[in-house]
Every structure is written in structure tokens, then in C-alpha cells.
């Protein structure tokens, strides 16, 4: 016989045998998988950010298919819309959930916090935090190296060069929580997005006593408790010298914003106050310079930019309550650069 024919037959026979073997093995050790997992995974965004608390989109899809209800299962990136689609596939009713957004709770702008040292090591918040207090005197505030920016997969967070603080883009933020985990100082928090993106929060996490906190940063929460007294809904509590607004109880009356002597409470996306007080026009330019000797106790809140996340770029005039403190407080040094101590960090 022709050797070529022999080779062909031998090869064909081996191939057939292998095919049969493979088929048998495949049937024997077949892994039964819910076909719906693939369908669910398809409607999930595929960012694999881990914001849902699972290892990735596939893991969430598996969990959804196993669960009896969709309670506690939420894709923060896709939100309600995606969960409704998942519910359709699985025949489960979607559970209503509040949309959330990342909020940066530090308003220690370059003006408010004088730099007293210069860091020339690796630009990483985590490393700076493990080394020392940071370039300013506040041991709780934002370090400004942008670990949160690097952690965000959606480009929703960026450092404002003017304030040196991160700002969150409400529309892009998917509340996956990556920035919350990345921040070594636990400044970023996921809060209720609120009606029309309106939010009120204490933009400070400084747990030092009032006088110390104020020395480190003009915009710090001093834990005076005025907001706590002002709040009729029991939403604000001062603990460890810092106020916290419970967003589940807050009714957005904005009384606390006006009561805060340091401007640490921020309101976002509210329309400007309807009737401006007569002093306001005067107080605006005065904010950047030392106050006149004897201002009457007054409360002026600089109107917030309508859509942007962090209003901290504009100086907020603190209400002058105790004369001595206010005198010190309303004298911000705009030229913080020149005051920089020549002591550096990191060898």
C-alpha cells in the first residue's frame, strides 16, 4: 500500500479515537452552569470595579442568579436601570435604592491651610500618610497627591489646582467606592445623591479640639455644636470634636450652613439665596482681607457655584462670634507659598 495512505488512515484513526475520548470526558465532567449568568453579565457594565462588593461583574451576576430577591445586590455603576434589566432576566422585582455619590470632606484649601513644610518624595497619599502629617499642619486633611484620582476608573474625580483638593463630577461618579478605599485619611464618603444633586455635608474630618483644628486650617470644623443646636431633625451630631450630618435624616433646610462659624458645612447645587442681605456686597471683597476692627456678628455665606462640586475655591467669610478668635481667623495669608518653611521631609 502507498505509505501516504497508511499515514492518512493512521492519523484519521487516532483523531477519531481522540475525538470520542474527548466527547466522553466532556459529557462525564460537564459543569452545569446557570445560563442566565451569561445573560446577566451582559447587561452589567463590565467595569469590574468591585463597587458592588463582589470580585467583579461575573461574581455579581452569579450572586444575582443564586439570590431569591435582589435585595442588597446593587451595581452602583449601572444603578437602578441596570438592576431593572437584571430583574427582568431573572424575573425578580428590582429593589429601589438611593443613588449615592462620592463626597470629599475636606475644605482645607491652599488659602486656608498654610504649608509649613515641603514634601519632595513620591507623590502618593498613602506614602505621605505613613511618613508624616503632610505639608500642612492638619493631620486629618487631604494630602492632595491624588490617590483617589488614580483609583477612579471613570474619570470622575480630579484635583483642582487652585484649591489643591479633589473634586467629584456628579454625573460621572458611579459611587463604586474605589476612591473611598484609596484615601488613606478616610476623607471621602459615599453619601445620598439627593434631590437635584443637592447635598449638605460637613466638609471636614478634623478630630482635634477646636483651637488646634482652627490653627491648622481656617475652614476646619471646630466642633462648636452650633449646627447641632440649629438642626430640628436630629441629623447633626458632634462626636470627637467634629460634626457629622446624617444624610438619611437631613431635610436640606440649610440652617446649619448659616450657623457654621468656620464655613465647614457645605451646600451643593442649591440655587443662590433669594434675597441677598445688604451687607453681603460689602462682605464679599472683605473676605480676602482682614476684617474691619469691630464687625457685628454676622453670617455670610458666599453664594455657591451652581453646578460644581466643591465650593471651597471661594473664601467663605466666617461668622464673627468671639472677637478674639475671629480676628485671627479672618486673616488668611494668601501668600502661603512664601511662608513655606525650609524644612523638608523625606530623605
Amino acid at each position: 500500500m502507498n505509505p501516504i495512505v497508511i499515514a492518512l488512515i493512521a492519523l484519521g484513526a487516532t483523531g477519531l479515537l481522540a475525538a470520542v475520548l474527548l466527547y466522553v470526558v466532556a459529557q462525564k465532567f460537564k459543569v452545569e452552569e446557570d445560563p442566565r449568568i451569561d445573560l446577566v453579565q451582559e447587561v452589567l457594565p463590565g467595569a469590574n470595579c468591585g463597587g458592588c462588593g463582589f470580585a467583579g461583574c461575573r461574581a455579581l451576576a452569579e450572586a444575582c442568579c443564586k439570590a431569591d430577591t435582589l435585595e442588597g445586590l446593587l451595581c452602583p455603576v449601572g444603578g437602578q436601570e441596570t438592576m431593572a434589566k437584571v430583574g427582568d432576566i431573572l424575573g425578580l422585582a428590582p429593589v429601589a435604592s438611593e443613588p449615592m455619590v462620592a463626597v470629599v470632606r475636606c475644605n482645607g484649601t491652599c488659602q486656608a491651610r498654610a504649608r509649613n513644610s515641603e514634601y519632595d518624595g513620591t507623590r502618593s497619599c498613602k506614602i505621605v500618610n505613613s511618613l508624616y502629617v503632610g505639608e500642612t499642619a492638619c493631620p486629618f486633611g487631604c494630602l492632595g497627591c491624588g490617590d483617589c484620582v488614580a483609583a477612579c476608573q471613570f474619570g470622575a474625580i480630579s484635583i483642582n489646582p487652585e484649591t489643591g483638593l479633589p473634586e467629584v463630577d456628579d454625573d460621572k461618579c458611579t459611587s463604586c467606592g474605589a476612591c473611598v478605599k484609596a484615601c488613606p485619611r478616610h476623607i471621602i464618603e459615599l453619601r445620598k445623591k439627593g434631590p437635584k444633586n443637592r447635598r449638605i455635608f460637613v466638609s471636614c474630618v478634623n478630630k482635634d479640639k477646636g483651637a488646634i483644628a482652627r490653627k491648622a486650617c481656617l475652614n476646619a470644623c471646630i466642633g462648636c455644636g452650633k449646627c447641632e443646636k440649629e438642626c430640628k431633625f436630629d441629623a447633626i451630631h458632634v462626636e470627637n470634636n467634629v460634626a457629622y450630618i446624617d444624610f438619611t435624616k437631613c431635610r436640606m433646610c440649610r440652617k446649619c450652613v448659616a450657623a457654621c462659624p468656620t464655613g465647614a458645612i457645605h451646600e451643593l447645587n442649591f440655587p443662590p439665596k433669594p434675597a441677598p442681605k445688604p451687607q453681603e456686597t460689602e462682605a464679599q471683597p472683605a473676605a480676602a482681607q482682614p476684617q474691619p476692627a469691630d464687625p457685628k456678628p454676622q453670617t455670610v455665606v458666599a453664594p455657591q457655584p451652581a453646578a460644581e462640586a466643591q465650593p471651597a475655591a471661594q473664601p467663605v467669610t466666617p461668622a464673627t462670634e468671639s472677637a478674639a478668635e475671629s480676628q485671627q481667623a479672618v486673616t488668611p495669608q494668601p501668600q502661603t507659598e512664601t511662608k513655606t518653611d525650609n524644612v523638608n521631609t523625606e530623605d
Partner: protein
Amino acid sequence: MNTFSIGGVHPQDNKQYSAHKKIVEVPLPQKAIVPLSQHIGAPAKPIVAKGDKVLVGQLIAEAGGFVSANIHSPVSGTVTKVDTTLDAWGMRVPAIFIDVEGDDWISEADRTPAVNRICKLEPQQIIEKVKNAGIVGLGGACFPTHVKLMPPPGKKAEVLIVNGVECEPYLTCDHQLMLEHGEEIVVGIQILMKALGIARAVIGIEKNKPDAIENMRKLAAHTLGVSVQPLDLKYPQGGEKQLIDACIGRQVPSGALPIEVGAVVDNVATIYAVYQAVQKNIPLVSRVVTVTGKEVARPGNYLVRFGTPVADIIDFAGGVPENTGKIVGGGPMMGRAMSRLDMPANKRVSGLLLIPESEARRTDPANCIRCAKCVGACPMGLEPYLLSKLASLSRWDEMEKHNVMDCIDCGCCQFTCPSYRPLLDYIRMGKAEVGGLIRARAAKK
């Protein structure tokens, strides 16, 4: 000549500025601030209150656990408050504030310069005295010395290794101590040998200190079992594991303590403190600090009471030169830049290095060129390029597998990197994270 077997670098030693400068006492401060955490381990617990009168050497804070150390008042006066202060890096630490009045010592302290050679105490009594005196390793790590003197059951110390290497550039405090107080150090070595029940001690000194080698040789000549081992120059020879390798040729396994190979390592400054505590009843209230730098007016070795503000010490040495860019606590390799100068001197501060602005800045890092110089330089046999990359990617499990916990923070990798990559920054951060994970795992068990 001996040295350790793997890795190491040769930084310029720059010891000429302060070498052979006699130890000078820095005047007492007006107000002393004594931090309660001057050692590795739990902070000490204060036992004095506002208004109490204290004497120099009086116990003011008790050790807060087994791995902790007593703290004694470095000055005499009135306690004004027990509060918090800021450390060199701006972090709040508990401290005792004392207004200084005169310089009255506790009655049992013997402050005469005569050397007391005879020690009749039992080993247990010696360890007790060392513990009560609050002695910690003055080489930099501040590990409580009494813990080292009590080997865990089943382990036996065989040799005491005395660290007179001072491999850190610029620092000269140990060198000067060996020249001026060599006799006391030899007595201290004998005391520790007695406490450990061993017959052999090796004093390791690098050969850039020939006068110290000669002095110690002369003094130890008639002491049985004590020998001086001159060592080749190489950083980080003063590292515990490197020094054991260099002096007696034994390698401490990964993750183990020196006692595993029968060695106990103590710095000469620690041994001098042991002598003071055991023979003179003087607890650890002061240490020699090198103040140095290229532009410092009076660089030298200064005897500093703990609690003296760093700014006062620098003023005594001629003040901060105008063009200073960085003030480092410790040496240039392992020390850390300070962000404030009102912090008090403590057991940790072995040197104050004032670096001129022109040398203070880091060079911008470039890409890794895979030259593996860092691998060759690492004295612990690690792969720094890999560890730093893993740390920047937060891959802690892999870092642990690659033995990141063996890293001794010596900085050889970063020193040797031709691309000026911040290798140690990342490794240190990763080490802290991995350490936290290991502790969490141990707590779960």
C-alpha cells in the same frame, strides 16, 4: 578583614565634620517635654501628675507591657501637665511637660567619673536593673534591651556582639563614646556577658575608626573572652543581621531573631547606658547626639538630656545655616527628615544632620532600566525593583511571598538606583501594609 557576605553599598562617610570632637554637654532647657513613646512597643504609662516635683532620674512613666520601657525624668523641676505634643513629623504623641528648676538628681545616682569595675550582682538582678533603668537599643531601633537579655526558652545565647560599627555616614557619636568612655564600655560588656551567662564577646568596629579599634583593643586586652574585630567599610554593616554575619560568620534565617544563631547584638551606646545603670544607678536620661552638616558652625558630639528641644541643640551647635534645605533626625541613609524643630530629643535621636538646600532635593525618577543594581545592593537578598512595583500595584500577598518583611529599611536599593527611583518609599509602604495583614491574621487565630 571581615564584612558581611551579600549586598551593601559604599556611601561617602563624611565623618570628618564631627569626628574627634569631644563630647560637650548641652545646657538644660527651660522646659522639658518628655514623650512617652521613645521605644518600640507599647507607650509608657505616666505615674506623675500636674504639680508633682520630680528629680533627675526619677521614674515618671512605667513600661506599658513586656516590650516597652520605663521613662525617667531627664530634668528636675515641676510637672506642668501630662498632655500631648507633636513629634518630628507633626503627629500627636502623649508627653509629660516639666518646668526645669536646678539640676537635682536622685540620691542613689553616683555621678563621680571614677570607673567602678566590680559588679557583684546576680544575672537576674542585672536584668532587673537594666529593665528598671528604661534602657533601649540606642543604635536606632530603640528595642527594649531587657527583652534581648531574656532569651526565649530553648534558646541559648553564645556570643555578645558589640556594635561599634557606626556605618551610617556623618554620625560620630558612637566613635567618640568609644574613645572617651571605652573603659566603661568594657565593664558594660562584662556585665552583659554575666547577665547572659556567656564567655565570648566580639566588638565590631569599621576600619575607618583606627583609633577606636586601637583604644578598645588596648582596654579589652586583659579581659577574658572579649575581642575586637576590625571590619571592612560597607553600609549597612551596623544592621543586626549583617553584623552577626561580619563578626562571627553566621547567617540569621529569614524571619528569625539573632538569638536563633546564638547571638545578642548591642550598640556601644546601649552598653554604656547599661554600665551607667548597673554600676552608677543612673537611668537612661541622656545620650550623645551628633550634630553635623557641611555648613554647621560647630559640628560635634553633644551630650543631650532627653526632652531638650531639637532647636536648642542646633542653636548650641551654631544654629541653622541659612541655606539649609533639610534637617534629618539620624543619619542620611536611615534617618528621617523632620518637619518641625520644637520637638524634644528622645532616645531615638542619634544625630541631627543639616543638609544644604543644594543637596537636599531628590532627583526626579526615571524609568527602571532593569539593571538589577538594587538586587545586587540589597543586604537581605531581596528584589527591590519587584517589591516596589508590587507595592505600587497594591499586591500585598505577592509582596509577602517575596519576603518583604525581611527588609531592614537600609535604603541601599534607592541609594544605588541609577534612575533615582523611590524604591524604598514603596517598599516601606508595602511593608507596613503586609505587616498589618500578618498581624490581623495572627489576631484571628
